């Protein structure tokens, strides 16, 4: 089981055959996986079950079936584990009438931090909210609320950090800064689980991806490795050349090529064997006296993986 990409060798969170249903609706169905230090992206379209899975991992809801452990213990029965866990929930979850500083301090008090003001000050600095920390949260923008929530989750120095759509509402500069912060936390050896339906965000943050579709585990591992696992789906490659039609015609006769399409001055080919295409293409172009200006796989991104997972099933 541990050889599956759904599992890591040094897990801090272990999930075994977990399911959750609400009445007739199955939100999570028989999911088994594990999470370890570093950033793992929990990816899936809205309604895929990722927030439900995250809430179970955070001990907020009881699984209907299966078991999970966080730092070696069940978060539903051993609440002491929450001293080492931080959560940024998807919803607002803040007292608007409190100042940002007081909200984070209160979070520290609830987490049993002995010096809440000092811990809050560090967390507030970490998210770049020093200037606004003395203001009431009700006057904050959505991005500022998001950052103060992140500060609230960091204030107890968590070993495990759950982030449910943490970049919601943050402006581009703050997104970059928050992503840097999450990377730094992961580099310190913390387990960071980021849930998001925004592929671009996950791609920037996570080295490992757990993809969910319809409540089930659809894929796990490095995004490129996941893509490589889809052997029945050909890769798309974009080729720019100075004489595209000549090269396109020649490519059609090659075994590794499934299809060729020339649109404007660009060739789009589909191949099952990316490696062979890469080796064959330069010599073919040279023999035809065609100059290659760009060769680029079009679908190694998470977006393509995600598209296959959602629409290909």
């Amino acid at each position, binding site marked *: 089981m541990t050889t599956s990409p759904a599992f890591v060798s040094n897990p801090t969170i272990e999930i075994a055959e977990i399911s959750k249903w609400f009445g007739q609706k199955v939100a999570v169905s028989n999911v088994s996986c594990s999470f370890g230090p570093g950033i793992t992206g929990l990816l899936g379209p809205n309604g895929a079950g990722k927030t439900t899975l995250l809430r179970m991992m*955070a*001990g*907020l809801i009881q699984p209907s079936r299966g078991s999970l452990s966080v730092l070696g213990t069940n978060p539903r029965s051993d*609440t*002491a*584990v*929450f*001293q080492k*866990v*931080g*959560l940024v*929930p998807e*919803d*607002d*979850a*803040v*007292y*608007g*009438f*409190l100042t940002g500083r*007081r909200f984070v301090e*209160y*979070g520290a*008090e*609830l*987490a*049993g*931090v*002995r*010096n809440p003001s000092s*811990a809050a000050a*560090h*967390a507030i*600095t*970490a998210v*770049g909210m*020093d200037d606004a920390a003395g203001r009431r949260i009700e006057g904050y923008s959505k991005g500022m609320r998001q950052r103060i929530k992140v500060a*609230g989750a*960091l*204030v*107890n*120095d968590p070993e495990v950090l759950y982030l449910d759509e943490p970049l919601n509402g943050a402006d581009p*500069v703050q997104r*970059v*800064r928050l992503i*840097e*912060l999450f990377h*730094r*936390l992961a580099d*310190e050896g913390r387990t960071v689980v980021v849930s998001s339906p925004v592929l671009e965000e996950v791609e920037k943050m996570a080295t490992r991806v757990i993809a969910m579709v319809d409540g089930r585990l659809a894929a796990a591992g490095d995004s490129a490795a996941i893509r490589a696992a889809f052997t029945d789906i050909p890769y798309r490659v974009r080729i720019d050349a100075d004489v595209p039609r000549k090269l396109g015609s020649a490519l059609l006769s090659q075994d590794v090529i499934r299809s060729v399409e020339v649109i404007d001055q660009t060739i789009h080919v589909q191949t099952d064997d990316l490696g062979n295409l890469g080796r064959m293409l330069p010599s073919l172009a040279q023999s035809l006296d065609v100059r290659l200006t760009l060769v680029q796989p079009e679908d190694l991104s998470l977006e393509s993986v995600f598209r296959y997972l959602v629409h290909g099933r």
Partner: protein
Amino acid sequence: MSSEGAIFDLDYRRYEGERTGRAKVRWAIVRDGVRKVLGLRRKARRKVLPWGLIILAVLPAIAIVGFQVFTQGLGADELLEDLIPGHADYFGFTYQLTFLFIALATPELLIPDRVSNVLTVYASRPLTLLDYLLARVGSLLMVVLAFTLIPQIVLYLGGAVLSGDLVGHLTGNLDLLWKIPTGSLAVFATQAGVAFIISAYARRRGIAAGIYIGFTIISGGVAFGLAETVNRWFAIIDLQAHASVLIAEIFGQENIAEGTALTEQGISSWVSIIAVVAIAAAASVLLYRRYRKLM
């Protein structure tokens, strides 16, 4: 990109200090609840009602002591003794205000946590559902105790000073040391359960307070009417009457409960004790079940 992140150059510093136990965490919630109830660190309009009621509860006690100071030596002590309310009478007055105080305070403790989704914050911290609920109930109990005790302390100390025999007055009224807190607990047990249940379901504070006040007043009227016309045991649905009976019993002063449906129907004070315990137990179970679904 990283050159833009100057604010992060300070780095996130790990918290290396000690962790406190659950008792401290509970205490943090109690303190938060007390602040909420009293409107501390809130806008001025949030302070008006709680502090208005507190002033209303304390001011007459101060006035009574002041009046005693003013009339001392006029030679009308016996006449004034009948006019000036004692501890039991004053308690009978403040518990009516306590009812209003609980009506306004309880929604403040539960509703914002629920409608602002802040329950998630509590649920992801090292505390149990029971910790959260006990801390919330504890904050209200603390404030209610203070609400009823402070005016009594003013009367007690005022009386001691005016008596000219400080030690004699204090030792001569030692029974008040258990009667007043017990009376406060009885009032709390009678009134808070229903208020908490209403606040556990209502989404707006004003509506929760209105429902509770309406329910208490209407139940009193309905109890009286049904006890007179249908069956005398309908008198037990009058919540306020139970509080009056218990206070009368604790202070040994029957006039406090006079005119209530319970006394009119000659129902024993034991029934009130059982009813209050049953209401508090049922409210606790219902509250726990409600929040078990939410946290």
